[in-house]
């Protein structure tokens, strides 16, 4: 972080702004935290971004910060720094902390600590139900007053359809989107990997795709009934994707996110018994993976989110079925998706950037997030072609539970600017005299 310098001219950037459709090489002016005409910037620090892309700040709407409650795995300070290093200028931390974000006081705690320790913007999220137990509605109005921008019981799924219907109805009056972890508990049972060829061959207990698809279908029905926004978190199954595609064609207010690991990996990796391949929803089959990629290409899936889930080495270095679900993702999301989607020829750069910007902003109802003059200077700067090997020792996250360590990727975050402050800075060589 560079204290005291708030004014920049970012020269020769390839500006890709999916909000406006712009893709051109130009200079960007930043003064007092706001995007301005470069000619009017007083006392600027000039940085030459030739060959680099500048985009509206990336938003990850699915992150676990673990504070309060599990700060041995991550904190607001380390998690938001990991976000900055991953190119994210804003994140939505899931409310399944301990205590849970199911009351205004915990949201106030979160806001107070992010004001001090937060490196990027933190958009608070409250639970759907008390202690995300799926039994009683959380105080959604008070949560709204405390500043939440979305609601989720992530990690669990409300099984009672009547309660869920009322939550969606009640949330609508406060214009709070529902982010839903879709999982039917009977079909899930004690499963911990995808039910398919590999679970059968390895003798592991599977979670059938139907467990997810059933609740995706439920949410589509409720979004239609109530006419309000439900966003499907970490969609993993082909059947779920097809349900969402059909619903969106009908105009139902449904959106969906995919994680980098469901884009890049399949259940075949579980044969290594490495708990860094254990997450929920589980890695599924190649057919499911290809369906997710196709859905990203046709805009059925409008968001890429990481489900960044830090766990200590101690908790992960155990028998596979006894390890907690989840992997970290903030610092690998852009390189992995650039490699798997852009360099693989599936998405153009503007399309890929849209999944990190326009898609999440639409879910949250954020305005003023484009690179238009007058907007806050939230900018993600990256080199789309830089090739390197992911080294988990370099992560800012407090945890190291990633399956991507050692992977060769093409694409690197070089700078992250939040409200005119360069909070992640790998641009030393680009400084102009």
């Amino acid at each position, binding site marked *: 972080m560079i204290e005291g310098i708030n004014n920049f001219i970012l020269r020769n950037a390839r500006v890709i702004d999916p909000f406006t459709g712009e893709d051109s090489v130009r200079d960007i002016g930043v003064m007092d935290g706001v995007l301005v005409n470069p000619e009017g910037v007083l006392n600027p620090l000039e940085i030459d971004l030739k060959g680099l892309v500048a985009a509206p700040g990336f938003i990850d709407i699915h992150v676990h910060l673990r504070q309060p409650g599990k700060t041995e795995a991550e904190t607001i300070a380390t998690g938001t720094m990991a976000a900055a290093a991953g190119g994210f200028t804003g994140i939505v931390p899931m409310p399944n902390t301990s205590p849970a974000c199911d009351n205004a006081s915990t949201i106030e705690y979160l806001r107070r600590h992010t004001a001090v320790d937060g490196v990027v913007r933190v958009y608070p999220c409250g639970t759907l139900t008390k202690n995300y137990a799926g039994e009683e509605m959380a105080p959604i109005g008070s949560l709204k007053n405390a500043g939440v921008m979305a609601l989720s019981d992530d990690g669990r799924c409300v099984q009672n359809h009547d309660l869920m219907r009322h939550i969606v109805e009640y949330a609508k009056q406060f214009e709070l989107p529902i982010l839903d972890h879709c999982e039917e508990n009977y079909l899930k049972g004690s499963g911990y990997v995808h039910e398919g*060829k590999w679970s*059968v*061959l390895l*003798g*592991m207990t599977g979670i059938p795709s139907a467990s997810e698809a059933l609740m995706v279908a439920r949410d589509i029905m409720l979004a239609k009934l109530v006419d309000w926004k439900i966003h499907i978190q970490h969609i993993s199954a082909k059947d779920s994707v097809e349900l969402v595609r059909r619903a969106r064609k009908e105009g139902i207010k449904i959106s969906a996110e995919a994680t980098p690991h469901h884009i890049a990996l399949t259940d075949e990796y579980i044969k290594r*018994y490495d708990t860094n391949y254990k997450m929920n929803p589980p890695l599924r089959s190649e057919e499911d993976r290809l369906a997710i990629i196709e859905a990203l290409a046709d805009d059925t899936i409008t968001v890429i989110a990481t489900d960044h889930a830090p766990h200590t080495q101690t908790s992960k270095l*155990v028998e596979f*079925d006894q390890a907690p679900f989840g992997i970290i993702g903030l610092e690998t999301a852009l390189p992995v998706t650039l490699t798997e989607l852009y360099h693989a020829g599936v998405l153009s750069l503007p399309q890929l950037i849209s999944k990190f910007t326009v898609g999440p902003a639409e879910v949250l109802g954020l305005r003023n997030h484009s690179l238009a003059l007058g907007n806050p200077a939230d900018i993600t700067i990256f080199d789309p072609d830089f090739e390197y090997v992911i080294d988990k020792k370099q992560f800012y996250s407090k945890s190291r539970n990633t399956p991507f360590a050692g992977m060769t990727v093409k694409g690197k975050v070089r700078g992250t600017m939040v409200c005119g402050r360069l909070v992640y800075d790998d641009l030393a060589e680009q400084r102009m005299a």
Partner: protein
Amino acid sequence: METVWTRKDLLSLYDLSADEIIFLLDTAEEFKKVSERNVKKVPALRGKTVVNFFVEPSTRTRVSFELAEQRLSADIINVQASTSSLKKGETLLDTIKNLEALQVDLFVMRHASPGAQYFIAENTKCGVVNAGDGAHSHPTQALLDLFTIREKKGHIDGLKVTILGDILHSRVARSNIWGLLKLGAEVTVAGPPTLVPREFESIGVKVCHNLKDAVRDADVVNVLRIQHERLNASFFPSDSEYASFYGIKPGILDYMKPDTIIMHPGPINRDVEISSAVADGSRSVILEQVTNGLAVRMAVLFLVAGCVKK
């Protein structure tokens, strides 16, 4: 015999080549002769310490291993989950590291989690012999089944083998399938659709839900135990309905070839998956499997111990 064995661990038959499996079986033949002698003990593992680490209950496999270790003159430590520090919250890896610090050589390990022995083998210099990991693998059981089949039929290549029962939860089935496929047998898995996943077809195994069709051409029928302790949901209506649709009883023998042998890994639920008349009848090789298990485990311990470098 020139050795083709270079592994410090025996984790799954999936990992082994056909040559390695045959070498194990040939070595077991030599050890079978030891148990037929007057003096049933050899000094092959003298000075070596074997830990029988059972994190899941077992009687016959543990006894078979322990006797095999005694006949090889090893020093033996028995650790059971109920009395170990796992109950006090120590991690599995810490328990293993503490035992390793006592300069032991081999772990014979049973665990309820699939892959647990892979996890341990990667993190210890000691040898690891898998005595069953959840529903995944039980390689010495499959080796003793292969040994028995080869002894009875003279070969394994080209035989038709039907594995019948709760395939879904069975490490015996998963290990037998890989061993049989690698040695050239045709494998059919049979039983109710709730317990016989279709996904086995992806590796060239036939899936069948009709008992008569499943046994008609079989040279070997391996009957699995209905594992009541793993059936935590409703997979079939009752033991009596299971017995009537899938139980091996005298009437079913009429549909088989006259020289079909009947196997069972034990312990048997009499008159559920197999009737007493068949279990105790002339086609049954169930007790010979138990005898051969000792020879196979002696061979495995001997070969694995020879590859532990410390």
